[in-house]
């Protein structure tokens, strides 16, 4: 396994880091899309997040990492075993699965296990990437270059939370709930709006303009490339602290109160921006709640809504190319109108 750049060593890019952390605290926010210039450390951040995630409890031997006790969301095998008796559980790292460009459909959805079929004559299902990503993260680098038929597939599964396989004489369905993380460069093509909408949060990253920050980025990168283990060791304490924060925030999340006033403000903001559907409001409130949990607060305050609003809403605005202002500015304008400067 190649060494991974520590999350806490990433210079700047606060919005991206916060969005990723928020989605780690509350997976139901629904994924993060990171769009931005070349060389801004988009994929570095996503890969670094994997190391940061706390372990999760799963059923021993389940290929879909089912959570014990979650009746609705278990695979059929776990259901059966649960009915027969108690399930054994274990702690495993939260999966962060790469969906590389050039992956074939059979590997994404899963297919018949050739080895077993040939050697033992057993018709067994070999789970694909979607199964491996269940309850974890599915990461697509250069998401705007993903082939259309794979995008369709992802859309379908991300919406239903379930992967249905009907091929090679197999008929299998298994849970596939994952946080979709995509990165890309808008200059290489736009994303289909259906896919855009599947991402809870979207972040635009830019190269830092301050000289000091840029020097720091280059310095740390150089140190890392030179001697990865030493560099990782140096940032281990910071990463550990961050991990504890995520764990604590996860535990606190359900107790964080969302006052009616906050919901009302979120709704007002979405109305004034004219976002389609309710997904924007829902995501905004959830993201604000995750931020409040990370802030160790017991209730959602205006600052959380304000901080969450750009990421939660900027990709949901009705596209009006004739409006010169970018969507980020439109969201900021609307928040300033609502919350005051």
């Amino acid at each position, binding site marked *: 396994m*190649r060494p991974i750049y520590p999350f806490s060593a990433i210079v700047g890019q606060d919005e991206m880091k916060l969005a990723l952390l928020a989605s780690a605290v509350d997976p139901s926010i629904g994924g993060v899309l990171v769009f931005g*210039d*070349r*060389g*801004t*450390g988009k*994929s570095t951040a996503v890969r670094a997040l994997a190391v940061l995630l706390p372990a999760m409890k799963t059923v021993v031997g389940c290929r879909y990492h089912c959570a014990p006790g979650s009746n609705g969301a278990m695979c059929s095998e776990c259901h059966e075993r649960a009915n027969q008796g108690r399930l054994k559980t274990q702690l495993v790292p939260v999966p962060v699965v*790469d*969906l*590389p*460009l*050039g*992956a*074939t*459909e*059979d*590997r*994404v959805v899963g*297919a018949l296990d*050739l*080895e077993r*079929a*040939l*050697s033992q*004559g057993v018709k067994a299902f*070999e789970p*694909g*990437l979607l199964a491996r990503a269940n309850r974890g993260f599915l990461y697509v*680098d*250069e998401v705007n*270059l993903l*082939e259309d*038929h794979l995008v369709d597939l992802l859309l379908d599964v991300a919406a239903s939370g379930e992967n249905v396989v009907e*091929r090679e*004489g197999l008929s299998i369905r298994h849970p596939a709930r994952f946080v979709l993380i995509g990165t890309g*460069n*808008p*200059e*290489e*093509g*736009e*994303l*289909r*709006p259906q896919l855009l909408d599947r991402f809870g949060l979207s972040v635009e990253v*830019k*190269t830092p*303009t301050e*000289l000091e920050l*840029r*020097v720091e*980025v*280059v*310095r740390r*990168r*150089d140190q890392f*490339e030179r*001697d990865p283990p030493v560099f990782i060791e140096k940032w281990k304490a910071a990463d550990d602290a961050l991990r504890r924060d995520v764990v604590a925030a996860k535990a606190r999340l359900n107790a964080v109160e969302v006052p009616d006033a906050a919901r009302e403000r979120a709704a007002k903001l979405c109305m004034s921006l004219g976002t389609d559907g309710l997904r924007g409001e829902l995501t905004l409130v959830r993201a604000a709640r995750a931020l409040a949990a990370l802030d160790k607060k017991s209730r959602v305050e205006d600052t959380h809504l304000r901080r969450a609003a750009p990421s939660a809403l900027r990709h949901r605005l009705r*596209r009006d*190319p*004739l409006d010169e202002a970018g969507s980020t500015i439109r969201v900021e304008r609307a928040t300033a109108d609502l919350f005051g400067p």
Partner: protein
Amino acid sequence: MTSVTAGAGPEHDAALVACLFAVDPGGFGGVSVRSGCGPGVDRFVKLLHRLLPAGAPFRRMPLQVADGRLLGGLDLAATLQAGRPVLERGLLADADGGCLVLPMAERLPLALAARLCAVLDNKEVIVERDGFACRHATRIAVIALDEGYGDDERPPAALLDRLAFHLNFEAAHRGEVQDLPFDADQIEAARARLSAVMAGDAVLKAFCQAAAAIGVASVRAPFFATRVACVHAALAGRERVSDADAVVASRLVLAPRATMRPAPPAPEESHEDSDDRDQQQNPPENNSLNQEAGNGESDAANNGKLDDVVLESVRAAIPAHLLAQLEVPAAARRSSAASGRAGAQRQSALRGRPAGTRSGELKAGTRLNIVETLRAAAPWQKLRRQQSRSERVHVRRDDFRIKRFKHRSETATVFVVDASGSSALHRLAEAKGAVELMLADCYVRRDRVALIAFRGGAADLILPPTRSLARAKRSLCALPGGGGTPVASALDAAAALADGLRRKGFTPTIVMLTDGRANVARDGNGGREQAEADARASARMLRVAGLASLVIDISRQPHPSAEQLAADMGARYLPLPNADARTLLRAVQAVTAQTAAA
């Protein structure tokens, strides 16, 4: 043993890059070499090969390489023989520890570039194909041979960003490489010394500052410059990066990436320094000559000066042709780009480039991909033979793999907008609006849009063909207007662009927004008569080329000359007084839809 020889011409740089590259190929991402094809490039590539550590793989990647061959997948022959699935390693994994040569990199599709970039970033190939899931550690360097003409033919920017060295053999020389500044032993010694070489903060800061000054946003540029400086120091036998190393690195890595001219140095500052630092006035390579190996460490007192020295060396090294590009607005330069090149123009009935296969039913209008079908069937042969007790090859319906083609209606719309005279602003604004609306709407159809504006003496390519709304917005934000009406130049530029697009497999449509009253001739001089004659000649050329086109007159009172121009072009004529962006878009879409269907 001088570390750097004088006379840092392009020939010298090529030799120097070869030495630097040889020390740590995988650490640099690679080299891009822009040149016409010829013996020079071949010699350079051979040189790179020769300098690599013994036994390092050196592979060539054809542009049309399939995913299976590139990334790895099922090995058909071995699978059939063994009766069980056998994995074949791909080209990328095979090149681990060595180089991948990429001929015709300017034609590299974005999707392929993205696969290369992923490997350069992650240093591993992730295979999720044909029932295999595995990872191969892959540390490679890419040698991209860029044989593009003109400025629109370049390797994908995402790839270039990840290659440390950008060489240009085009203008100055044909790639004759001079004597190497370092010998094989020095390179070997540098490999051993490299990990101990450090660059001071002053050097990092100077690189970042210089990169910002020449408009390079990506952090990879200063990072690569740091790597190059370290390697250069290692070659010279130093353990700490000296100013001389920094100067060389900034010249090699930063200068070729310049997107803007650095602001001239603040006069008072450079004045203060000039006493104790005469060399600064000299060209930077001489400066580096004066520094003895091992004693050129940059101490803290020198910090401010190092920034200037580095920036100065970058300024001096920005290639002349790049400077010219930075001066000339976007592309009046492209007119000569595509003339007289022959090539495969169109493919047969099922047009479009093959884009992989997928499993599916054999229906009318689909084509079976026999090899992929066999590949799918291969692992099962042993089992199926046992079941049916016959020795035939068993192919079942589940095995069918259907060829997929890229959308055959991939269209490209070239807007040619009259930005001259009084109505320019209005016309430009609406055309701009139409372009953006079109792009906002085109994710499904994957259309491309380009915009040429003509005014004064020439036609400029404001927006090269793109489907990125972000890019369009950036290019279109400042469009000048006013001046004469060079219709002929505009038509020529449009024809050249459309021709190039057609070669790339698009269906181009030219949409011209003008009142048709030409008053600037092709040679840039005024004179209505000559201008109109030239315009008509160019218009007829367009008709001969068989390009679908549309002339829209959006002036208040449509003028017969626009209709005449349309007739000459063989274009549809559409007077649309007071048209706004949306009306324009509808008109254009009606025409492109017909063209695509034709």
